[in-house]
């Protein structure tokens, strides 16, 4: 820590320590209300029910069903983060650069605030009532167009169904986090590109997207973690069908039946590790791909 301290900025030491004093509340708060309370999780992951040290919980993570649950979780998180990133980005573009009426943007932003936290039983129910087998849209398609979406392979209670539901909060979250970056695209870049003969598509491919790339990557990471840690919606919707880590984890900690908190902690530790790794990957990727930023 002292090494960082010395090189953290070029201002003299006296001032530096003042700056550090300024982040003490945050550090202290994080320590007291985030890290230490969660530390029990780290310790618990290495304990058996009697409190003795063991690596069994960690070893247990490598049994096929748990590996599979991580895999499915990662897939759903990646798919919903990717979809959320894509559609949220397009929606933000439409609202910010699309010359839509002025009320659109603030409405979308406040709506996104609510929708990005809409989860759990109400969200699951809303989708069941929409796209479940007796849902509004399902029935509408059936009665009016004679299309049976379930006959054609759709199922809300599946990997893609869950992803579709996750998008309900992922897209708004993306809208919220990417909007400032979209605002940062200079009008002149587009104009310069077009006088140089570039079509809109070429401008996006060669200029706008590369410029937005670091922000997109950061947003993806946030969305990924958001989906990775989501539990209530998954539980409410796919109660017994999808084997994802958070459901497994809660089954261990809270369940009527399984109840092995230590294994639950190990599962959580695995999740934190994966989040840390993706954070590291993000830093590495941006430093490599965005050499042009200061």
């Amino acid at each position, binding site marked *: 820590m002292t090494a960082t301290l010395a090189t953290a900025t070029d201002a003299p030491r006296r001032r530096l320590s003042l700056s550090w004093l300024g982040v003490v509340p945050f550090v202290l708060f994080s320590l007291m209300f985030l890290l230490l309370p969660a530390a029990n999780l780290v310790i618990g992951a290495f304990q058996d029910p009697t409190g003795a040290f063991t690596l069994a919980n960690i070893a247990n993570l490598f049994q096929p069903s748990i590996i599979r649950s991580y895999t499915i979780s990662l897939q759903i998180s990646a798919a919903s983060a990717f979809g959320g990133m894509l559609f949220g980005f397009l929606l933000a573009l439409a609202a910010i650069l699309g010359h839509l009426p002025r009320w659109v943007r603030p409405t979308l932003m406040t709506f996104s605030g609510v929708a990005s936290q809409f989860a759990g039983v109400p969200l699951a129910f809303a989708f069941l009532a929409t796209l479940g087998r*007796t849902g509004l849209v399902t029935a509408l398609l059936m009665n009016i167009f004679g299309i049976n979406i379930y006959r054609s392979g759709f199922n809300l209670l599946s990997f893609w169904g869950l992803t579709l539901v996750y998008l309900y909060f992922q897209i708004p979250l993306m809208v919220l986090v990417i909007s400032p970056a979209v605002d940062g695209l200079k009008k002149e870049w587009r104009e310069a590109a077009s006088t140089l003969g570039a079509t809109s598509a070429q401008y996006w491919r060669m200029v706008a997207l590369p410029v937005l790339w670091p922000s997109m990557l950061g947003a993806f990471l946030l969305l990924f973690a958001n989906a990775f840690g989501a539990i209530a919606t998954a539980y409410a919707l*796919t109660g*017994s069908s999808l084997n994802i880590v958070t459901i497994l984890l809660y089954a261990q900690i*809270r*369940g*009527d039946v399984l109840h092995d908190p230590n294994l639950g902690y190990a599962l959580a530790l695995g999740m934190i590790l994966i989040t840390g790794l993706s954070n590291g990957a993000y830093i590495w990727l941006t430093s490599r791909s965005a050499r042009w930023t200061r």
Partner: protein
Amino acid sequence: DSMDDLVAAAKKEGSLTTIALPHDWCGYGDVIAGFKAKYGLEVNELNPDAGSGDEIEAIKANKGNTGPQAPDVIDVGLSFGPSAKAEGLLQPYKVSTWDTIPDAAKDADGYWYGDYYGVLAFEVNTDIVKNVPKDWPDLLADDLANSVALAGDPRSANQAIQAVYAAGLSAAKGDASKAGEEGLKFFAELNKKGNFVPVTGKAASLAQGATPVVLRWDYNALADRDTLKGNPPVEVVIPATGVVAGVYVQAISAYAPHPNAAKLWMEYLYSDEGQLGWLKGYCHPIRFNDLAKNGKIPADLLAKLPPAEAYEKAVFPTLEEQGAAKEVISKQWDTVVGADVAK
């Protein structure tokens, strides 16, 4: 006498903290109201929707805490009694009606004691389901496509595991040793047929039509029926075979901040008044036979219950049987049933 002393001591503590007692569950709403009215104590209700595991974890987490977050008493699935006792999370107490509780349903030292039971039933929305299933194999009927749901996740919810067990017991013709595997097989088939809906069935999904058949405790189903008041109409069916009873147990936390209020609560629950309160919520109280024998059950109350014959067939799985089935069902659900669902 000692009861007065207990009441005085409890009043001094002023309140009782409970956990996981939904008001629609077993008539707990009225039971709690009755207790409050009778003794003038505050009842602080923690998460009514908690599972048994939550209740145990709540005791553990609140060790050393006398705040209102710490539960005094718990009401958990049968298997949690012995395990919680082993972890030292309980304190013993024997209510004054202790002797009228069947021995099979209580810890000899008074650490935990059975409180009520019900059997697994079919809760059916008859707006949607015209041919009401009467037995487990009926659930496989063609017209029940996308209809049948469990009331929880068989990997973690006791109720759901018991339902799988019950289906298996029916298929195995009563052979408890095969019940777990047969149950999985049954649900695999149900799923393959397209009848199984893998969401947690509850009143809303039943009414909306997403899960017109829900497999759950009869008392929950009956309470639901009353709440829905015919919109939609609900029929509660106790299956012809595979009638499995589930027992919950009552216990006092080892760290209860209000031990006397907790003991008073137990006295109330196990008094005739308390037992009849549960019965009003369609639960069979553990002293049912004792009360019946002594003619203490009002006739109108009896009339509202499912037919007594259905209960005569009820099987009470032993702790061992339950443990074995739980092991099979919770571990293999994913591969035998869930993996297909997830596609």
